[in-house]
């Protein structure tokens, strides 16, 4: 079985982002970019399946600007076999990405597609579910455990009250939550090897996907800030303030 894994190039999770003064977006100039952390978990899960002999090939796909090739190289250095870059300079929405990925799935015929549950830039949490819908496949979102079976898989999901387990028909979509695994670091020899692995380039037009925007970002602003309050001396003063000043106890 072949596994397709989506990887997104995002602002590194350690970077404190700055909103542009003209409110058109977030400043991405000279900012460190990395693979979306949930996508690292997705690659890791696919690699573990391959190492367990359940999967033959791991293909990493990214949609975006030319530099997304670096994100694919990271996936290849971790151990993915080959990459697909769908190149566009447009800012696409999850619906567009899902349509592009559907076209790639139609060509590649993977038995499983793994995506991160959300990207840490736009926080949409949509692409995996949308791809499942477009393909008419089952979806195991926010997964903390995947057990591949014959024709189906058992997926344990992180839900608000605890954990939920579903039995899902293959082929299917999985989106990863934080506790699915601990992603590996790429070793230097593997980074060198990754440079020779193939990356196929396409465009949304090649795949016949209409990327006309549905959403327009009107402005991006700083969130409302909270003012620091007062420092109290001890528990007694705290309780007194909470009762008499704030009125919350």
């Amino acid at each position: 079985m072949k596994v397709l894994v989506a990887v997104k190039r995002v602002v590194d999770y350690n970077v404190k982002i700055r909103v542009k003064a003209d409110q058109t977006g977030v400043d991405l100039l000279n900012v460190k970019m990395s693979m979306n952390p949930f996508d690292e978990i997705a690659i890791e899960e696919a690699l573990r399946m391959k190492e367990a002999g359940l999967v033959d090939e791991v293909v990493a796909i990214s949609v975006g600007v030319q530099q997304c090739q670096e994100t694919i190289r990271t996936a290849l250095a971790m151990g993915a076999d080959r990459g697909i870059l769908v190149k566009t300079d447009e800012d696409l929405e999850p619906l567009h990405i899902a349509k592009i990925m559907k076209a790639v799935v139609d060509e590649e015929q993977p038995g499983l597609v793994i995506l991160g549950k959300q990207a840490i830039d736009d926080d949409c949490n949509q692409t995996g579910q949308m791809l499942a819908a477009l393909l008419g496949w089952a979806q195991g979102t926010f997964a903390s455990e995947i057990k591949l079976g014959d024709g189906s898989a058992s997926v344990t999901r992180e839900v608000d009250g605890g954990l939920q387990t579903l039995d899902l028909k293959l082929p299917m979509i999985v989106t990863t939550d934080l506790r699915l695994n601990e992603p590996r670091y790429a070793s230097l020899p593997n980074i060198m090897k990754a440079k020779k692995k193939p990356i196929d380039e396409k465009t949304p037009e090649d795949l016949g996907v209409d990327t006309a925007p549905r959403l327009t970002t009107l402005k991006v602003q700083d969130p409302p800030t909270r003012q620091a309050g007062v420092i109290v001396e001890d528990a007694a003063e705290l309780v007194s303030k909470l009762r008499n000043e704030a009125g919350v106890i």
Partner: protein
Amino acid sequence: MSTLVIAEHDNAELKPATLAAVTAAGQLGGDVDILVAGQGCSAVGEAAAKVAGVAKVLVADDAMYANMVAEPMADLVVPLAQNYGAVMAVANTVGKNFMPRVAALLDVSQISEISGIEGPDRFVRPIYAGNAMATVQSSDAIKIITIRATGFEKAAADGGSAKVESVAAAGDPGLSSFVGEELSKSERPELTAAKTIISGGRGMQSGDNFPIIEAVADQLGAAVGASRAAVDAGFVPNDYQVGQTGKVVAPDLYIAVGISGAIQHLAGMKDSKVIVAINKDEEAPIFQVADYGLVADLFKAVPELEEELKKLPPA
């Protein structure tokens, strides 16, 4: 154009976050209807009919919807959505799961986790874990929206008298089946519904020390939460986690104990009305958002807090 709100419930009770969604739906103008999809959920339908401002309640009662699994839910909602200008659900793990599936089947771009509404097609939503707020305009004919419940006041649970209609179940897509769930049991209120929350962080040092926080929670009738650091260190289970990748809460009172205040955590609680921080490090970023800060060793301060609360006369 009217809006269909998809109820959050457990087949027995309507969850209060649904009331916030009713308020948000009302801000779009037009009628607000509620869909209750579940199994043996007629009591939820009746409760939904009493919510102020609701025109009509649709009840889809079938074993397929008992756990609101995404594939059958989407097939139920998609045909109903054609009658509405917008479909709205709470951005919890249920809504986040099935709503994008609905959106894709309708060929619509979903607007996720909105925290404000500026017009029938203009919405405010946090991006970058709440470190920026984006205002977006949607050109889709049907708006598919999930809401951050803490961004909207709750509609009154009483005072309405909507008519209740049953709707037929859609076909079973046969893709998924529910196997089971392990829900954490607690006598305390749920994090997302609690008026008061006390959370512990890495400063707690061990899960064995959480009873000192629980003792305060018992005095206040509070829920107990934790930072991601405390969850990752294995002090408490995952579902305690408040933050960007955990639960987003906005109680009247949030007490952060031994929590430094990473951006990740702040994203999940900074909309609380009153924030208290107890931390021995006076430089901890949590003090920059706290209304009341107590710089102290938590192992001394928290038991003292419990004692002071015991002494407090009833309000």
